[in-house]
């Protein structure tokens, strides 16, 4: 097939998310159903889910979800992993054969922990080491692709409509406290399994509806810090930007949102709160290359929570609702009503206004 860079494909997308603030675990059924009324926003070229809290029995191990093109690639990759990690478990990810999903690669998952000796040798902290290893596999090992690498979470993605992708991966059999979902209508790149959303790095996952116009400016900046944008897609670069700002620079999620969806200078100038004004000026000045322009609505999933964010002009739709300890987010209200017919406080956050939901400490 012709991959990214060789072909340009025109656009839509649907996103949805649900999270329990009490950390109560839900099966994937709700989020799969939520994608049904938004079916026409996708075109069958990609669907995927991120699920948090699904591997409590291995919660201290990194769960690598991987695609391989052949048994040989898998063997080679396993040998590479064993040089760097203790591989506690490796297995096929269970799938359901359905006519809607075809041409699947070999799909495995590994529960791993970095070898102490290797970490000491490289003088790297654990997360940085895992992130670098993922980058290395994805750029250097032809035919192998790590599409999920966090602890106690996992992404599941494929070429197909999201509701079919969910059935294919048997998501009704998993239970998590937080779920995000994506239906893809590829804009510039072809639909293939690796290119479906969510994009992830460590426990960060991003689902995205939109088409950012700052891709190359963002990519040039972020690649200076060791990130490799292999897929030419804006969602991948957003994932790395958030990892860079939050994990590596130590910004809060609110501050990260003020970097990527920074207010206009005229809006900053009109702020009456002097501290707020200085903070926004500082963030725009220090990270000008990480301003993300063009239409987007994204949901970032992370260990213990999620954040939803629209571009500052709000060129994509996004609706939030809640019921009890559950918070629902979707491109369309209809999707929220499928998850919870009696959802309350349904509203559309303003452009650039992050919606951050965290699970109670100790409950995830």
């Amino acid at each position, binding site marked *: 097939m012709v991959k990214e860079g060789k072909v340009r494909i025109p656009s839509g997308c649907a996103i949805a998310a649900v999270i329990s603030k009490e950390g109560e675990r839900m099966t994937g059924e709700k989020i799969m159903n939520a994608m049904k*009324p938004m079916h026409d926003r996708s075109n069958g070229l990609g669907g995927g889910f991120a699920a948090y809290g699904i591997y409590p029995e291995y919660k201290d191990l990194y769960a690598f979800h991987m695609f391989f093109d052949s048994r040989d690639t898998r063997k080679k990759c396993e040998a590479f992993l064993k040089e760097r990690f203790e591989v506690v478990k490796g297995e096929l990810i269970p799938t359901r054969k359905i006519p809607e999903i075809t041409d699947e690669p070999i799909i495995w998952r590994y529960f791993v922990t970095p070898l102490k000796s290797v970490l000491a040798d490289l003088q790297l902290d654990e997360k940085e080491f895992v992130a670098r290893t993922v980058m290395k596999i994805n750029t250097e090992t032809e035919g192998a692709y790590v599409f999920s690498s966090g602890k106690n979470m996992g992404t599941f993605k494929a070429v197909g409509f999201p509701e079919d992708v969910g059935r294919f991966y048997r998501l009704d059999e998993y239970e998590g406290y937080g779920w995000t979902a994506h239906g893809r209508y590829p804009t510039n790149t072809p639909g293939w399994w690796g290119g479906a959303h969510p994009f992830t790095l460590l426990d960060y996952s991003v689902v995205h509806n939109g088409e950012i116009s700052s891709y190359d400016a963002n990519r040039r900046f972020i690649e200076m810090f060791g990130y490799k944008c292999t897929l030419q897609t804006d969602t991948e670069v957003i994932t790395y930007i958030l990892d860079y700002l939050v994990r590596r620079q130590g910004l809060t999620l609110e501050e990260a949102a003020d970097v990527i969806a920074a207010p206009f200078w005229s809006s900053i100038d009109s702020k009456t709160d002097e501290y707020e004004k200085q903070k926004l000026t500082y963030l725009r000045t220090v990270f000008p290359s990480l301003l993300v322009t063009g239409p987007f609505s994204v949901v970032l999933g992370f260990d213990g929570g999620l954040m939803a964010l629209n571009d500052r*002009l709000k060129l994509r*739709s996004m609706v939030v609702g809640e019921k009890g300890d559950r918070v629902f987010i979707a491109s369309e209200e*209809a999707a929220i009503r499928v998850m919870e017919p009696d959802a309350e406080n349904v509203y559309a956050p303003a452009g650039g206004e992050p919606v951050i939901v965290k699970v109670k400490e100790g409950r995830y």
Partner: protein
Amino acid sequence: MYINAEGLEFRAINEAIRASGGDITLAGCSGQRFICAGMSDVCVTIKGVPGNALGAYLNGAEITVDGNAQDAVGDTMNGGSIIVRGNIGDAAGYAMRGGCIFVKGDAGYRAGIHMKAYKEKVPVMVIGGAAGSFLGEYQAGGLIMVLGLGIGGKRVVGDFPCTGMHGGKMILRSDCRDIRFPGQVTVRPASAEDMQEIKKYVAEYCRLFGADEKQVMDSPFTIVTPDSSNPYKRLYAAN
């Protein structure tokens, strides 16, 4: 006539509406797009959540939504009415050129973007709550009215209203001291004559949604119009 929309896709829904005609209750909507698109002489009450582009190109039909509606309500509508007893999403009344939209609650971003008017075709959009940013962006004609009812301390409209406005009229139920307008529009308090016009639409809003007319009228109103019929004449070339 009663139509159950559950499990039906939008084509089937519109076919059923056309086949039935007259007064219709459409129940169980869940995001199906283009409901009533281009229709002329039906009267449809919708339950559930209708999808995007509800009443696009509407040509005289009457639609009532019992709850919220999504994006692009009344996209390019030509005539008829859309009444929403909840909130509406973004880009409501996009390029609307006739008929009216009444919303009980809030509107999202870009309501009334590129509304226009021609001779007897003068579209009207009345928003009961608050409107999001870019209200009336590129407005070229028609009337947009925002009442700001029940919005607490929030502003009646978000940022950058009337950006690129070059025709029509906007009426905001507020003194608008906290709102910044672009340079090419005139912002002034409503005159006695304006109040007569305002009263007509407020009365209709109150009749539809049951608000107290006297209370709604008892407030400052602000009128926004473009400075001239062609404020961008010299924007790109000195011709």
